[in-house]
C-alpha cells in the first residue's frame, strides 16, 4: 500500500527544533520561521551535539550573515505566497524590502549570487509549487487557483506554469494522477 501525504514543512521543522533543543536542556525562543533565539550561552560541546542532531533532519544552522539574510528572504517569500492574505495589492519587491529593511536591489543581487536563481524566479517557483499542491490536494479549478494566487488571468498562470515546468497544468495533474493510480495497482 502506498500513502500520499501532505505535510507542513514549517510545522515539522518547528517540532524537530523544539524536541532537540529540549533534549539538550537549552533555553530557547522560536522567533519567526527559521529563527531561534538561544536565551543563554551554550557550551561548544552542546552546540556541536545540536548541530549534528539537527543535521539528521537536514536542518542546518546558518552561520554567516549573508546566509541568514537569504534564508530570511526565502521565508518571507514563502510566507507571502502561502499566506495569500498578505499578497493582496502589495508588490513583492516593496513587501520584501519593507519586511527585511534592505533595498530590493541589494536583496536581489545577494539572492542571485548565492542561490543560482533570482528572487522573481524563486517567487514564481514557489507560486507554481503552491499551484501544484492545490491542483493535487483540492478540487479547485485552475481559474480559482489563479484568482487565489492573485494572477491577472488563468492564461497568465497557465503560461507561467508552462514556462516554469515545460508542461501544462492539466498535463501535470494527469501525470501525477496516473502515477498514483499505477502505484496503487
Amino acid at each position: 500500500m502506498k500513502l500520499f501525504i501532505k505535510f507542513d514543512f514549517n510545522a515539522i521543522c518547528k517540532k524537530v527544533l523544539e524536541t532537540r533543543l529540549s533534549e539538550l536542556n537549552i533555553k530557547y525562543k522560536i522567533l519567526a520561521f527559521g529563527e531561534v533565539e538561544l536565551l543563554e550561552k551554550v557550551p561548544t560541546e552542546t552546540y556541536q551535539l545540536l548541530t549534528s542532531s539537527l543535521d539528521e533532519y537536514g536542518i542546518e544552522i546558518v552561520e554567516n550573515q549573508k546566509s541568514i539574510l537569504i534564508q530570511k528572504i526565502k521565508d518571507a517569500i514563502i510566507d507571502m505566497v502561502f499566506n495569500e492574505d498578505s499578497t493582496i495589492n502589495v508588490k513583492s519587491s516593496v513587501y520584501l524590502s519593507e519586511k527585511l529593511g534592505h533595498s530590493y536591489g541589494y536583496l536581489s543581487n545577494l539572492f542571485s549570487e548565492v542561490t543560482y536563481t533570482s528572487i522573481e524566479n524563486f517567487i514564481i517557483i514557489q507560486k507554481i509549487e503552491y499551484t501544484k499542491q492545490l491542483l493535487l490536494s483540492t478540487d479547485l479549478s485552475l481559474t480559482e487557483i489563479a484568482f487565489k494566487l492573485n494572477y491577472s488571468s488563468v492564461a497568465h498562470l497557465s503560461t507561467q506554469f508552462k514556462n516554469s515546468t515545460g508542461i501544462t497544468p492539466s498535463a501535470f495533474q494527469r501525470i501525477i494522477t496516473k502515477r498514483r493510480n499505477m502505484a496503487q495497482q
Partner: protein
Amino acid sequence: MPNDYIHIILADDDEDDRLFFTDAFDELNMSTKVNTFNDGVELMDYLLCEEAILPQVLFLDLNMPKKNGIECLNEIKSNSKMADIAIAIYSTSASEEDIEETFVLGANIYIKKPSSFKQLKKVLSEVVSMNWQYHTNGLNKDNFLMRL
C-alpha cells in the same frame, strides 16, 4: 549538503552527445561533478554496487543498446535506495506520449536534446538550478516535473 559539488551522471551511447554534455558542464562553472556511462548496463552496474556515490541528477538516454532508458528508469524506481535521485530523460525525440509515459513511470525531467550548444548549456543549467531549488527549499519532490 554532504558535498559542496553537485554530482551528475549521464548514460548515453552516443559519443558526440557525451562530449557535448561534459563540455557544457565544463563551461557552466557550476561546481558539478559529471560521470558518463556508455549504456544502461554499465550505468546499472555502477549504481547497484555498494560503494557507489549516488548522483543528485541522472540523465538517461532512451535509445541505448543492451538496456534502454525506460528499463533503467524502472529498475531505479523499484529500488528504494535510489529514491532521491532526480531522473532526467535525455532523448533525441519527444512525442507527447513518450514524455507522458516516462513521467508516469517516475521521471522528473524530460529533455529533448537541443540542437545548439548554447541551448544545451541553458537547459542543463536550468535542470541543475531547479533540482537545487527542490533540494534546498523543501519542495515536494513528488511534484518535480519539468520538460525542456
